């Protein structure tokens, strides 16, 4: 699991992402959206777990391929 940057670093990240996406975020919505962004960063960090045998390169989601052979 990767480490969470501090708020200052996250603010820079937040602004870069928003600009790249072409978003003009109203000032009154920014605090709530930033709180959501921090939670998102927590989740994407959580997902970075040790890799397993299921990480073969062609692994993409298909319920049929996932259940095949079970």
């Amino acid at each position, binding site marked *: 699991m990767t480490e969470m940057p501090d708020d200052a670093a996250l603010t820079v990240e937040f602004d870069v992402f928003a600009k790249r*996406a*072409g978003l*003009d975020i109203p000032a009154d919505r920014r605090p709530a959206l930033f709180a*959501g962004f921090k939670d998102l960063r927590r*989740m*994407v960090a959580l*997902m970075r777990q040790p890799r397993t045998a299921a990480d073969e390169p062609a692994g993409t989601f298909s*319920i049929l391929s996932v259940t095949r052979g*079970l």
Partner: protein
Amino acid sequence: MTDTKLFELSIAEAGRKLRDGAITSMALTEDALARIGAIDPALDSFITVTAERARADAAAADANFSKGIDNGPMQGVPYALKDIYDTAGIRSTCHSKLRLDNVPAADSVVETRFKAQGGVLLGKLATHEFALGGPSFDLPFPPARNPWNPEHIPGGSSSGSGAAVAAGLVRMAMGSDTGGSIRGPAAYCGTVGLKPTYGLVSRRGVFPLSTTLDHCGPLSWTVEDSAIALQVIAGYDPLDPASVDRPVPNYLDGLGQGVEGLRIGLPRHFFAEAQGVSPEVVAAIDRAAETLEKLGAVVEEITLPDYELFNACGRVIMYAEAFAIHEQDYQTRPLDFGLLTYLRMTLGAFVTAADLQQAMRLRRELTRAVNLKLKTYDALITASALIPAPAFSDIDPNSPPNWPIQTMPFNVTGNPAMSIPTGFSASGLPLSMQIVGRAFDESMVLRIGAAFESATGLSARRPALAQGKASR
């Protein structure tokens, strides 16, 4: 027969009476329209009531019955659709200012199938905006309310579907489920809610939220009615890229078989150790496990990967896919979205390609972990909602609610999952659990649900509001 008795008839019971001439479709339809007129002002479950269309459908169904023509179990039976299902000539708003004037030219596949059977469309139901943002008071229509207590939320996003079914305005209503949007309202409103296997029911003509997580399915008062609805809507659609071409079984066949000898896994750690879980929810699931054991099933505790992994995986995928769908509107008219939609969906702009690829990698691992358990067990039971329905006053209108609900895992894995009532809280609100099956084994999920429903008799208890005893 009184009006009250009419609304209490299940699809199966109504079907028998329609076929033996004891009732007409027009009587069922007029009863439903009258109930909507009397009760729905306290619930706001309908966005559009299609009374004229319903009467025409009912007249056509009665004419067919009189000629001996029978197009299937939905003939003459009223139903309703979440307002993200396209209906030709009838506005389909997604409960959003952005689609207020949207009148589709064609029907969704699901609507086509109900129409072909001669079902009676009562109308279009409230949802969280674009099946995501709610409950909100800054949208063109008010949020639906919970029939058990209108000061409480009905869950979402298929909020109108849950409220309308629980209030006895309609026997079955279609919802959609991307992270729990069928099972959540079912849990909070005390109905049955079935999310079928990913790929079993076509999503064509249903406004997408997240293309690899979206599922279409029914909410109903009884398990049998969900089985009937599923029978109508299941099947291959070559124009839905996720649709799977495989035979559709008869979902009614196993309903009376009971659970004797079945092996059921209980990932109790999933919910019993979750922060903020209600002891009433845990106790009700423990009682449900005992009930299933008394009926002859073997229930054993099992361990699944951490719930937070499922949740993170599903949310990252959902945000990214949802934002991609709405990206242009976010750049050109972002303030036309409701606040809660804006705050949740915008997060998709912050997901990187690597994040999304990690989520898809994890999704495969989690799916495999669940399916490996289901090699040993016929089904799993676990919590739907971790608490009874919150009050509107408990929700911060300026911050997306963090739903205390554990439905996302089975959107991530694609397994069929059904929410079913397990009892009531001390405050009189419904409690629930999920029954989760192997991919494409809805028959097993329905079979266990039917046995449990029959043993507990919980479907006999209706909200006072449905009986005309209370109003907002």
